[in-house]
Every structure is written in structure tokens, then in C-alpha cells.
């Protein structure tokens, strides 16, 4: 069934007939002053509070060692980053259902947000969106220089006109729906580890 043009017109006519007489101006968003100091430290603190963890590695070679240490029993490691091969490259995945068995997904975030510990991931970073959500565990590479202070700065940095999907991910999946008790791993990733590693070290 196609929605007829008339429904759209009926709604618009009803809205126009109902619009309040008083028009309110857009207030404009002021620039809130921030100190640029300790962004990485704040990011890490808030990531911990969100149930995630952050790690430093000396070089790209250290990523593989760390992934093994964090997930010793992982069978399927699906990577969307050049720094680590994993057992399955995301490039060969044609359909999201193929990701149902992924133990660990590895992606690189565009930037992090200090005030929440969230990271920004787009469809281009995930390659197949479902990698970010079907994987039992996530490893996220992040350049520590790419951390913004707050959501105002974050939204100046996202490019929603360039991607079909973008997500601020703040730690692993969580719920508090049974007696307000916090449990991680509700439907998405059970754990989320951020590894600080500049992208230039490829």
C-alpha cells in the first residue's frame, strides 16, 4: 500500500492550522569553554565507568598479543583494521548473518569523547554494520590524539551527510531492567576494550 499524497497533505494542513501564533527563534548554541588538558585521562575514566577498559600498546605488533591475552578462547576474530589480521577479514563478509559466530570484532574508531568515554564508529569503519553488534566482544583502536572534550565538539566532527550509519558507543552492551541491577552483555558486545594506537603506525 502506498501512502496517498492526501495523507501527507492532511497532516501538513493540520499542522499549519495548529501552529502557535508566537514564533520562537532558534537560540543558537554557545561555545562552552573547555580546557583541552587531560582529555585522554578523562576519556579513560569515563570509559571505565561505562564498563569498558583502555589499554596502551607500544606498537601495532602489541595489538595481537593484547587481543590474545584479553580473549584467549576466541575462535573467530573478525578484523576491520589493517593492524591485525584476525581469523576472518571483514572484506570477505557479504551478508551480516555471516557474523553470527564472531567472538571478537576489531574496529578503529574515528574519535573518542572525553565527557562520556564514548567512541564514534561509522559504517565505513565497521564495513558491515553488524560487526559492531553481533560480535561477542569488541576491540576498538583509537588514536589518543583524536579525543574531543564533549558532545558539542563531537557533533561538529561527525559527518552525517557522508555515512548511512554512525554510532556513539559508550562501553559494552548493558541493561538494568531486572531490579535495576547493572548487567553487561545484554544483546550487543559483552566487553569493549579500547586500545590507544595512532593510525599512522600502520
Amino acid at each position, binding site marked *: 500500500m502506498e501512502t496517498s499524497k492526501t495523507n501527507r497533505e492532511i497532516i501538513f494542513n493540520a499542522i499549519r492550522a495548529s501552529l502557535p501564533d508566537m514564533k520562537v527563534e532558534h537560540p543558537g*548554541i554557545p561555545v562552552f569553554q573547555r580546557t583541552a588538558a587531560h582529555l585522554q585521562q578523562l576519556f579513560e575514566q569515563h570509559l571505565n565507568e561505562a564498563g569498558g577498559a583502555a589499554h596502551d600498546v607500544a606498537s601495532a605488533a602489541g595489538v595481537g598479543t593484547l587481543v590474545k591475552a584479553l580473549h584467549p578462547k576466541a575462535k573467530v576474530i573478525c578484523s576491520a583494521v589493517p593492524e591485525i589480521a584476525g581469523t576472518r577479514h571483514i572484506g570477505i563478509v557479504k551478508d551480516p548473518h555471516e557474523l553470527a559466530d564472531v567472538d571478537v570484532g576489531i574496529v578503529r574508531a574515528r574519535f573518542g569523547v572525553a565527557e562520556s568515554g564514548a567512541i564514534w564508529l561509522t559504517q565505513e569503519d565497521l564495513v558491515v554494520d553488524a560487526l559492531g553488534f553481533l560480535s561477542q566482544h569488541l576491540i576498538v583502536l583509537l588514536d589518543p590524539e583524536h579525543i574531543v572534550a564533549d558532545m558539542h565538539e563531537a557533533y561538529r566532527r561527525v559527518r552525517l551527510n557522508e555515512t548511512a550509519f554512525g554510532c556513539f558507543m559508550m562501553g559494552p552492551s*548493558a541493561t538494568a531492567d531486572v*531490579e535495576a541491577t547493572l548487567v553487561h552483555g545484554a*544483546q550487543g558486545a559483552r566487553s569493549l576494550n579500547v586500545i590507544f594506537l595512532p593510525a599512522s603506525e600502520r
Partner: protein
Amino acid sequence: MSIVKQVNPVAAAELFIIQDHVHEPMHDRFLWGTMQRRNQQAAAIPEWEELRELASKIKEHTLTHLDLYLEEFERNATKRGAHIHWALDASEHNQIVYSILYDHGVKELIKSKSMLQEECQMTPFLEKRGIKVVESDLGERIQQLDGQPPSHIVFPAIHKTRQDVAKLFARTIGTDPNNDDPHFLTEVVRNNARPRFLAAGAGMTGGNFAIAETGTFMVCTNEGNADIGASVPPLHIASIGIEKMIPRVEDMGVFLRLLARSAEGAPLTQYSSHFSGPRKNGELHIVLVDNGRSRRLGMPDFWHSLKCIRCGACMNTCPVYRRSGGLSYGATYSGPIGVILDPTFDEFKYSELPFHSTLCGSCSEVCPVKIDISDQILKWRRVMAEKGYLPLVKKLSFSVAGHVFGHPEEYQTLQKAAGPAMDHAPHFLLYNNSLNPWTRDRELPRVAKQTFREWYLANRSEHGNVQN
């Protein structure tokens, strides 16, 4: 012709309160804990009050230019490849969703939480037509398995104990009724939902905000369940109320800083996802729903309720909601926001709700978009009185109170008389449970030895002995 009955929140609240000594205090404690976390988060942000003012003004700006922003959103979302549908009301919304599913041969649907889909009663409509609908949010899934609507817009099953959930899962999923560990219960639903995500022909979500500038809508969850539903099945359908528009991307910074802090005392929800057109190899349909919203926009006293971002802070702070439970409102939206939204759908059916409030004003104080909720509750009382929906018991007590407050000398006499009377009134008269469920677990406050008026005359007025 079916006869619409008035919901009776007092009777329903009484059932919640008297069922045992566990549920009501637990409910109260959890929501108050959430409120305290919200207060800590708010206090940690120096510009918190400024953000509330900005959010309020941006919403008012958008709503007073709603036609323009809806056109802009439609234009940009279409350009990105989304299919836009317009639904006048709930039944049209359901029809549109059904026809999209039918056209794609979809027999099974996985959905995330959407109050709008609740409002439209979508699930029973689709199930009657042979489509299997599975809720993927844990709280919503619990409520679906129990055949109940959500009792809270953010924590749908917050009125249930872990034992309730364990017994429910034992009955419906076949798990151990004695294992009531929330970790175990969460894992049960995770394992139960995974195959459904993979089998579903479509995923459905709601939308927390729709950004006109880019044709993007965004969805906030803690579980990541909306993202699985949107990224695994080939078809994504989103139901979005026409009031969810936001002009520009940069406006989102204000709203996301407020939303999760107000809702649950966290800086963000775990997932804040932005959908701008269909994903790679996917198809995206957006159903924009009016269902009374355009009419509400034309109500001078009530259109500000359209600013609501569904955080639930007003419910968590409300002394009446916390004690009576969300199901007692008998409506899709409960708590203070429900009291002012529900009557716009059916004034008679929800005519009792505006009286299910103490008018303490706390809801207006915590609302992140500064809706004048308690003022609107009072205005709804006036509407109900004018329509003659006022229940008899309240008509009587209001006329007595009206007379007494209109004659100050009688009020003073009564007030003085009340003190001694309280001391001697038989306890059963004040604490008659069947007359007044609110007093069941409460002691009346002591009556002051001196009234404020007496104190004022003695200490502060020109008639008394002013100190210093």
C-alpha cells in the same frame, strides 16, 4: 458500540501498594536511586541549567516551525534513499507497517522499544495478521511475555522483582524458577533473542530524534538491540512521531548531553545510533506519525508537552508515580508526562489522571526540556471540571474546600480546631484503608502547636513584637 470506561488510577495503585511489603518499597527505592544519580550528573555540569533552557528553546523553535522542518527532513531522508510514509493515526500507522511487511513477505519481526508503537497498539495488530513480533529490549521482552504493557517508558519492568521475572521465564521459556540472578536472567533473553534476530525478515525501531538538516534519525539504547535489528535483517522500519524533529546536527549536542543524564544518571546511553538512509544492501522505511500531535500543537495550554524527549525523569521524581507504579495509570504514558499526554487521546477515559498528582512541582523542575508539567496538570483538572468529568467525591470535597478557603476566618477556626481534633480522632477514621490507600503505610505529620499565622503575627507583622 463499545463503552469506554474511565481508568481508575487510585484503585489500581491500591492493588500495587497492598499486594505485599516488597514491590512498592522496591519500586520507590530504585526510581529514587535513579533520581539521585541524575542529580549528581546534573550537578557535575556547570552549564546544566543553560542546556535545559537551550533544549527548551530549540524544541519550541522547531515546533513553531514544524511544517518547514518536516519538509526538510522528508526531502533529505528521501535523498539519502529512505522511503517516507505519513500516518494520520494509529490504525494507519499499523496498516502501513503491515503492508511493507506483506510486500516483502516478512513473517517474523524483531523490534526494539518504541513508545509510539505501544501508543499505536502495533504488536497485537500485526500478530492478528500472522506476523510473529519479538521484543528485543530485556524489559520490554519481560512485559511482552507477561502480557503487560511497559510500566515505565525507560525501565518497562521496573515494578517486577527478580523472583517475578524468574517465575515468568520458568513459565514461558522453561528456565529454572529458582535462579533469579539478574545476570542469568539477562543471559536467558540474550540467548533466546539471538536466533530471532537472525531469522527476522525485518527489524523495527522507534526514533528519539530526527534531524532535518541531514534526514537522519537517531535511536538510543543501552543493549545495542536496536542496532542488531537495524543491521542484520535486510529491512528496517522506523516509527517516528512528527514532534521528534530537530533542526540541525549541532543541536544534538545539547539533547544528548541531557537525555541519558536525565533518564538514568549516565552521560549517554551505551549506544547512540544515527541512521541516514538505508545501510549498505539494506532498505529503510520511515513512518512519520501524527496520531493527535497536530491537534495538540493547536492547544495553547498544552502544546508544550510536544517538547518531551521521553527521558522519564518526571516519573522517577514523582512521589505519586513511585508509590503507585506505572500500570496504575492504565495508559501508554504513565507518570506526570502521562497525566498531561493521555487526556489528549481520550479526555473521558483519562479524566481521573490529572487528579493522580500532588502538584508538588518536582516534575517541572527536573524536566530537561522545561515542560511546565505541573501547571498543565492543574489546567487539565480545570478541563475535566468544565466537562463535568469530576468524580463525585472530589466535587464534594472541592466545594467544601472552596467555601472554607473563600472565608479566611472559617479557615483559621478550622485550623485551630483541627489540632486538638487530630489528637483525639479515632485512628481508624484517619487510617481507614478502604477509604484512603495512601495512609496504609503512613503516619500523618504532627500538627504544629502554633499555626504559621499565629507565628507570623507574633514575630513578623506590625501587630506583633518585631525582634531586634
